[in-house]
């Protein structure tokens, strides 16, 4: 059980692909100009991560070490193609907005990174959970950054939700600031870099604070033993 908790913790926080590994930044920075785009790309990436992790893990003993990277890329590319075709048929408008960044999921280092570093060495159930958690962790950063940029950039949240949820989505769109003229910089690429920098800084700050409070607890034997048992 401890293994699974650790996988969850790693994916969401300790080894977050966007904030700690800083992988997959190209799509992360490019499509997060609003929440809906962020959710769309986040879902697509998570699906590909889970699917590729499971397949790589299942075939890990049959793939020869020398050619593993091309094979991983082929597997990932097939799933990306599936996602792309699915999006074309069900979320065509969103597909048009995300554009090149859907096929570019193939080159997302986070996915190849998990296949190589985790799925090729672990059983399929753990790999599936790892893919899911890494995907959710990545998506949460996407959504947070998208929300920040949309809020500052145009004063709305969940605008154009109909792209994912159909006509129901229109009711979700919130105009947070009335008569807001918008801060264009937040929507332009510099806003993505500044926003991501602030989120990474915030995460490091929280980690630092957590480390400080845990240091202030006197390290008597009992706590040490528990920590060892858990890991």
């Amino acid at each position, binding site marked *: 059980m401890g293994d699974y908790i650790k996988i969850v913790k790693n994916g969401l926080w300790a080894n977050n692909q966007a904030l700690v590994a800083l992988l997959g930044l190209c799509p992360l920075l490019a499509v997060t100009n609003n929440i809906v785009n962020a959710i769309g790309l986040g879902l697509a990436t998570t699906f590909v991560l889970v699917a590729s992790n499971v397949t790589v893990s299942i075939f890990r003993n049959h793939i020869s070490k020398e050619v593993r990277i091309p094979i991983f890329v082929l597997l990932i590319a097939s799933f990306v193609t599936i996602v792309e075709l699915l999006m074309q048929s069900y979320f065509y408008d969103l597909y048009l907005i995300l554009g090149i960044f859907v096929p570019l999921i193939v080159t997302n280092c986070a996915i190849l990174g998990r296949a190589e570093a985790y799925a090729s060495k672990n059983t399929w159930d753990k790999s599936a959970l790892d893919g899911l958690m890494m995907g959710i962790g990545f998506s949460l950063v996407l959504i947070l950054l998208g929300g920040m940029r949309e809020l500052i950039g145009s004063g709305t949240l969940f605008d154009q939700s109909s792209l994912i949820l159909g006509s129901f989505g229109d009711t979700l769109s919130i105009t947070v600031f009335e008569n807001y*003229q918008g801060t*264009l910089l937040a929507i*332009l690429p*510099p806003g993505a870099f500044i926003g991501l920098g602030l989120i990474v800084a915030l995460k490091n700050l929280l980690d630092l604070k957590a480390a400080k409070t845990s240091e202030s607890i006197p390290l008597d034997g009992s706590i040490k033993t528990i920590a060892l048992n858990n890991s």
Partner: protein
Amino acid sequence: MYSKALNTNQIMRQVMYALALGVVAAYSFFGWGVIVQIVLAVVTAIAVESAFLSIRKHPIKPAISDGSAALSAILLAISIPSIAPWWIVVVGVAFAIIFGKQLYGGLGNNPFNPAMLGYAFLLISYPLQMTTWAGEFLGFSQAIDVVFNLSSVDALSGATQLDNVKTQLALGKMVSELDVHSISQAWINLGFLLGGLYLLFRRVITWHIPAAFITGVAVISSVLFLINDQIYIPVQNHLMLGATMLGAFFIATDPVSGSTTPKGRLIYGFLMGVLVVVIRVFGGYPDGVAFAVLLMNITVPLIDYYTQPKVFGK
């Protein structure tokens, strides 16, 4: 007499005195809005700098009293239209101080000129408010009304001459059909030129950057003018329109973000002058000083690396 090195506070104060002429010129054409913007900017700068220093647990008083935050604020306030709403200058100064200066570690560590970073941020984010200038002299109460959104300004606003010329040229007009002169801009530039000469005289700045900057502007604009005098405006207009003189003497010479070697300063200033004209003529925005300064700021480490004076005897 001037052999004693000036400390930061004295340098900043000299620069502020030198700015006065240009500010008076701007005041005489645009009215009280200019002064209102400067006061707003300085108050914001001191408030934001104090708040951020206390978050960083640094001593507040020495950093505030060196005047660097106030100077950045004044430079930014001079660059924005005098009738811009109050939140423009507040947001711009806050951005300049926080993202341009404090996040890099405070005075002396910022790779970019904070005032120009704030200006570029404002110009990109709020293009409408940043390109609407006062068309006439505004009295004190009128300026307060306009800056704090109490009344509309449509009747008395306009674009700058550079902006106008750019729009007209884009519509296919020829330079000879246009009035490319601007009395107000010329006087303001003259004010900053004289202020800059005062700084040179007091040895607050060296001659390298302003001279190279102005040469750069002059060279590239003459080349363009010689190529086609119906599409490109004459040299003297490039020198006396927009923020040319303010940029040459007050912004490019920032000792923190600028080049520090004599040869480096010549290269730095010249390329900046060239970039100013290139961005003005071929870019999407009416003036290019802010972008030219920021672009050259990032080349400073490279320029300084290759222009270090040889140690004698080596």
